[in-house]
């Protein structure tokens, strides 16, 4: 997994819009939901590591994978795909940490995007 690819993977509003046939209201409300859900997912991943539950980690990775494809972040989605078979060894933990470091910036990108949208509506 190339960490640079993950760092350069950003939220693509056009991809999201094409998923929902250009319906902006569905995109906005789902983005709001996603910004909360992503933080909760991140906490669940950390808990699964602390409790040494690789099966749970794989399960969470599978669950959150489509969210990143929806956001147009295919590299992060593919990272989740790799984590569906992760082991709790050094290599596995490195990959998990890449995801955990990425999540706050994804949430921030969503928040900036939605705040901009509100600003332009005023």
């Amino acid at each position, binding site marked *: 997994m190339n960490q640079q690819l993950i760092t350069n993977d950003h939220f693509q509003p056009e991809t999201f819009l094409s998923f929902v046939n250009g319906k902006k209201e569905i995109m906005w409300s*789902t983005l709001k939901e996603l910004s909360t859900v992503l933080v909760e997912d991140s906490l669940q991943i950390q808990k699964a590591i602390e409790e040494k539950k690789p099966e749970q980690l794989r*399960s969470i990775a*599978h669950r959150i994978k489509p*969210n990143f494809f929806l956001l147009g972040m295919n590299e992060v989605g593919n990272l989740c795909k790799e984590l569906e078979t992760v082991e709790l060894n050094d290599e596995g933990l490195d990959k998990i940490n890449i995801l955990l470091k990425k999540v706050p910036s994804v949430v921030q990108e969503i928040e900036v995007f939605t705040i901009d949208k509100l600003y332009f509506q005023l």
Partner: protein
Amino acid sequence: MESIPSEKHYYGVASFIEKNKKKDLTIFIIDDNEAYLHLLKQILDYESFSVFTFTTGEEALEYIEIKPDLVLIDFHLNSIDTTALNGDRIAELFKQRVPGVEIALISADKKINLISELNNVNFKNIIYKDEKTIGKIIDVSDTLAEKKSKKLNYFIPFIVLLSFTIIENLILIIKLWN
């Protein structure tokens, strides 16, 4: 190499909604991915549909007396509650308890081996969490909303005419009374 299932798997649910467009459908959506749960509810939140969302199948089964027409179930449901039953088992329970219920599986996994596993419980409809399917479901919901709206517009002139007739008659009755 992953095998992608044929197109017929994609549009089962959209066809079901289209076929039942004159009915008021009750739809259950069961997915432990809350963002997708929210997304699907938004898409199907058409005025004549009652949409109920659940993060586990067990929770949905508690409301089985509502007798849903359509149940959309994610296959992997145990990422939050590790003891939660997976979608195939929940589907069986729904089929046993609500005869005639239409069930569709939601999956982020396009691997054909998963489909083969699912064939044991005879899933006719599988929704993949991808652009193509979500878009198709939105198209169908939009068409239904548009038709409903056109139908209402057709009745508006009659309602206005009827209102005028009633008012006219009331005025006439008042005049005669006086």
